[in-house]
């Protein structure tokens, strides 16, 4: 069957088998490997993407279900060459180590800040409580999101040189 979804702002039409999971469609059909997967039971959240602006676990959504909808992956966070404040914050506050849970965490952070521009620590922890990180112990993720909340319009040159 054919599906058309707006992925990171661009309309994309593809043929999919009904059983193809959104995470596999994104990674393998569309080559967007920034979205990861890490479990079998919808627990880990490394597959989180935004569906019409809301975080969902893409391993538990069929590709077919996003026909006519908007999907944002980590590759769509930056505005062209300009990094999103969330991406800046994660670098500034060491919110990532191995980076595997990071795309999902950043997207959830983006969705949270879009609705609640100045969340407190409890709100942040609750927002990311459906996603597991094995590396950071979460405190630096919280700080990264707080940084992004405090710097809503930071622009940076993404040349790879860090601040």
């Amino acid at each position: 069957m054919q599906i058309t979804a707006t992925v990171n702002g661009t309309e994309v039409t593809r043929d999919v088998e009904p059983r193809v999971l959104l995470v596999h469609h994104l990674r393998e059909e569309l080559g967007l490997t920034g979205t990861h997967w890490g479990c079998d039971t919808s627990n880990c959240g490394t597959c989180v993407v935004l569906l019409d602006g809301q975080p969902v676990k893409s391993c538990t959504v069929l590709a077919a279900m996003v026909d006519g909808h908007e999907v944002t992956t980590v590759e769509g966070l930056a505005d062209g060459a300009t990094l999103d404040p969330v991406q800046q914050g994660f670098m500034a506050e060491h919110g990532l180590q191995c980076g595997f849970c990071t795309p999902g965490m950043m997207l959830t952070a983006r969705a949270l800040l879009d609705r609640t521009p100045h969340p407190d620590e409890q709100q942040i922890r609750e927002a990311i409580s459906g996603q597991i990180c094995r590396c950071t112990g979460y405190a630096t993720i919280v700080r990264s999101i707080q940084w992004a909340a405090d710097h809503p319009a930071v622009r940076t040159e993404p040349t790879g040189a860090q601040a």
Partner: protein
Amino acid sequence: MQIPAAFDYVRAGSVGDVLDLLERHGPESRIVAGGHSLLPMMKLRLARPDCLIDINGLAELDFVVEEPGRLRVGALTRHTTLLESALVGRLFPIVHDAERVIADPVVRNRGTIGGSLCQADPAEDLSTVCDVLRAEVVITGPAGERSVPMAEFHRGPYESACDQSELVTEIRFPIAARSSSAYEKVERRVGDWAVAAVGAAVTLAEDGTIADASIGLTALGLEGVATEAAASLHGQLPSEAVFAEAGRLAAAASDPTEDQRGPVDYKRHLADELTRRVLRRAVQRASTGS
């Protein structure tokens, strides 16, 4: 990651559409809404429907509306919507208490109240909530609409009164004055199934005595409400002793199973302990009108 076996897929555009598709695709077809109960089972190949009927497009079933004497909630209403609805929180704090501890915030963006009730998992928090609030479940089928009280809606673990050819479209909650409710759950970790949970609703008379009460247990081996425990509260002035008696009866009515979450006597203890806590809170809320 695990992958489902192959199946056919169709999208429904309306309630009538769903009923047609159910008939056309037969007994091995299943409705999918949020999909966070069904798809994981399909990925593990514990469920293998021939056809999925996707009802996520039925905006007409996504609503929260107050009418005189009742709150109407569409079956496709997402957990997140319920949790963010100030109206729901005001009328039925038990819903917010429960939603806060259902799965996790990301899963709540997809899961629906209709899906939760139809899944009928013995550890499903919303089933208990609907039992306690004496909800009515509206089912639409080829023969039209019918309304089933929660007490009759659940037939057993994973079994509901909704027939294969039908669709749950709405859940209705009666509203009463001087009433409130509460829910408390023990879980080993956010997102885990309940070790045990209890919900309660109370209505107070003008003199402050308990005019009506209902108590429901989650993951404690009791289907429906704890009738004796609730009955013990009628006409009583709220007090720790009164709550304790209700707790004792709720524990006696429970029939928990031992598993990795705990042994039988611990769970029975929780039935007692949590009943007291939710009664205390529900009464406090009903008294202050909060």
